[in-house]
């Protein structure tokens, strides 16, 4: 299994600002996934990030709102842009076919 860390673990942000979330894996992986978990709800896939190519976004998510970087096989970032209170969620990265998850970033937008 992979060990995944995320930074920050939590943050409180003002509306209109942006936050970049980092995901670090202890081994090289081809695919990384970013999910959103709104309060009390299940997980929804935002996008799939492969190293060396642009991220693939799911329906309802766009690159301008959630730009993703994947500079190497152990690291990825997700930016939540121009935030509103509706963006308050837990953001999680995962790796691998079985999909091991990071601890999540808890975001509150005021």
């Amino acid at each position, binding site marked *: 299994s992979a060990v995944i860390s995320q930074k920050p673990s939590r943050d409180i942000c003002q509306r209109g600002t942006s936050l970049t979330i980092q995901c670090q894996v202890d081994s090289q992986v081809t695919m990384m996934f970013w999910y959103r978990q709104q309060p009390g709800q299940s997980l929804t896939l935002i996008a799939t990030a492969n190293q060396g190519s642009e991220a693939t976004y*799911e329906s309802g998510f766009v690159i301008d709102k959630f730009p993703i970087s994947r500079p190497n096989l152990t690291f990825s970032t997700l930016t939540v842009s121009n935030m509103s209170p509706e963006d308050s969620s837990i953001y999680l990265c995962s790796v691998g076919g079985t999909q091991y998850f990071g*601890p999540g970033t808890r975001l509150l937008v005021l």
Partner: protein
Amino acid sequence: GESVGLHLPTLSVQEGDNSIINCAYSNSASDYFIWYKQESGKGPQFIIDIRSNMDKRQGQRVTVLLNKTVKHLSLQIAATQPGDSAVYFCAEAPGSGGSNYKLTFGKGTLLTVNP
């Protein structure tokens, strides 16, 4: 008024009892299924998986049953312990490899184990 999606199905059991958590999946083409456990303040933790060519798989204290005819998945936890208290999610994927590992998660069930 009631907010959609904020009320998880709940299951409350006594310590030592067996627990059964159910999940109905939507895509008949799904080939791969996973159960996750999510404790408060943590990310989902892999419990057990099963592929569509199987109908049962056992792990340590857990068993997953798959009924493709009715698109139903269940997780059985034997001798439930207080540490099993968490939200349990099922997830489905259309196949193995590449983008086919895009998981669709179920709603989740809150399991509470009473000592």
